[in-house]
């Protein structure tokens, strides 16, 4: 995850409390989504950014996961995400994200 984004996630978590933050990802692949999810839960796995060794344990979802989809009006979702839903390997993304949440999510 981009170093500046790590910094922003860290600052927002400190300001509002980690229990009140949900991170929504838009990565195009399961592996990339998993790495970003790991960064905001267990810390930066590349040991490069501000979240290195910081286990925030945030709630984190990909925009294509059902938990997010059901929060959004179907028309808006179709207009904004429908095309990508057709393109992405949603099952792979869900499985990566679920695995990371089960291991590291604290909330």
């Amino acid at each position, binding site marked *: 995850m981009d170093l500046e984004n790590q910094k922003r996630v860290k600052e927002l978590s400190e300001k509002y409390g980690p229990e009140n933050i949900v991170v929504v990802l838009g990565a*195009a692949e399961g592996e990339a989504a998993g790495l970003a999810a790991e960064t905001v839960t267990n810390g930066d796995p590349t040991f*490069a950014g501000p979240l290195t060794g910081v286990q925030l344990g945030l709630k984190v979802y990909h925009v294509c996961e059902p938990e997010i989809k059901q929060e959004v009006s179907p028309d808006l979702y179709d207009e904004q995400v429908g095309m990508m839903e057709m*393109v992405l390997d949603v099952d792979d993304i869900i499985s990566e994200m679920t695995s990371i949440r089960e291991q590291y999510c604290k909330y």
Partner: protein
Amino acid sequence: MNSVIKGTSYILAHAPDMVIHNGSTQTTERIVNPNSEYLVKLPSHIRSYEDALNYRPNQTYIGNMTPAELGEIPQPWYDKPMENGPRYGKFGEIMPEDEFYMMMQVCDVFDLVHLEKGFVADVKPRFTANPVISEDIAARIHDGIDISEIEHFVNEEHAEGLYYQDKLVGYVKRAHDVDVNLSAHVMHENLVSKASSVLALLYVVKNSGIDKSEVEYVIDCCEEACGDVNQRGGGNFAKAAAEIAGLTSATGSDMRGFCAGPAHAMVAAASLVKAGTYKNVIVTAGGCTAKLGMNGKDHVNKDMPVLEDMLGGFSVLISANDGVNPEVDTDIIGRHTVGTGSSPQAVIGGLVAAPLARAGMKIPDIDRYAAEMQNPDITKPAGAGDVPASNYKMIAALAVKQGDMEKAKLATFAKEHGMVGWAPTQGHIPSGVPYVGFLREQILNGEVNTAMIIGKGSLFLGRMTNLFDGISFVVRKNAGAAQAQEGGVSKAEIKGLIAEALRDFAASMME
């Protein structure tokens, strides 16, 4: 009348030592984690020049393989090298690092670059043997200096060292004692960009056959900024490169838009020529040192060679309509506007579907699409996927969503309307434009009639806006050429008839 694409050039420079010393992933790692395992392992993953020559995506970039031929080789490609890969191709060349340092030296007009004596003696004959290095450029080579002087500047005066095969062979010194905008690091980065742009300019002149004095304007579309503390992005890379390339009748300016820069510049150049403001405009860009080894950690972790060891450059000559070369159709321009939105669906809608709809066309009506042509060999191991394939999937999905195409054709869309990626991940370099050289040939030989070139840029990286950006344009067969073919007489046939008449005339004179 629309302007035409009269010539193109594509060049690479192998930069393995710059991966280690100048790539931002490595320079950041040395600050944050100087004893990291990555920095220890990195040197054993650096490719030789021969490996870079034998790497098929590089050979595709300079025109020795077509994207279709590359696509037939199963991925990954790094473990399937070709044999005796040539240095020169029809679009340009792959310059070795030592000669590229000399290119930087000849492009320096402020006495900032110096090379070691023995190094100069060794490299100069090879550098000057290059067909594009004219006498005026060769005359700019300075005599080398003692290694002790180089060591002094690197160790005491904050100069950036130039290394070849891990040995110090020169330096780029700072251009100001205090101003960070003129630091050795920035001057090095900018001189690399300038030198690779100059090389691309020299090749586009050679490839198109244009007289240098006929080039009126140059637009640089790289992602660097040159200037000092009072005007940090003042410019002008375009004019600076044109000077060294000998384009004495040209002026120019820089156009920026992150990775979308080249597409913006192409539209601007095509419009300037169509308006009659200039007859010949060159769009050009050099390469970027910061992006060398950007995904090096993933490549090393996966026990691969570090594939981001190439600096890229390209130039495209846009000229007044000659009735033959492919036209840039400025009536079909896709724009990602401030109000478009940043979801991929909105982006593809604005860049692809909307301009075609305005022209009464559907997505499958365009023969070929070229968006972000990044080499998947580089991006897939880094978890960024196959970028061109993702773009084709998105365009195809949108075609299905808006009823332009049956869902059953989703899987074959990329094969029919796209190609594999081959360009180095140098930001602006892969962005649509690597295909323009092949496209020009494919249109001229009748293989393709229309193509859409799409540039996309991540503006948010500059922290001035959260907006995304993009622009697209359509290139099509020249209406004049199309008419000549429909009329049953092609231009070549007309030329043949004239030649025959002249021969008859000459024969009658001899009698």
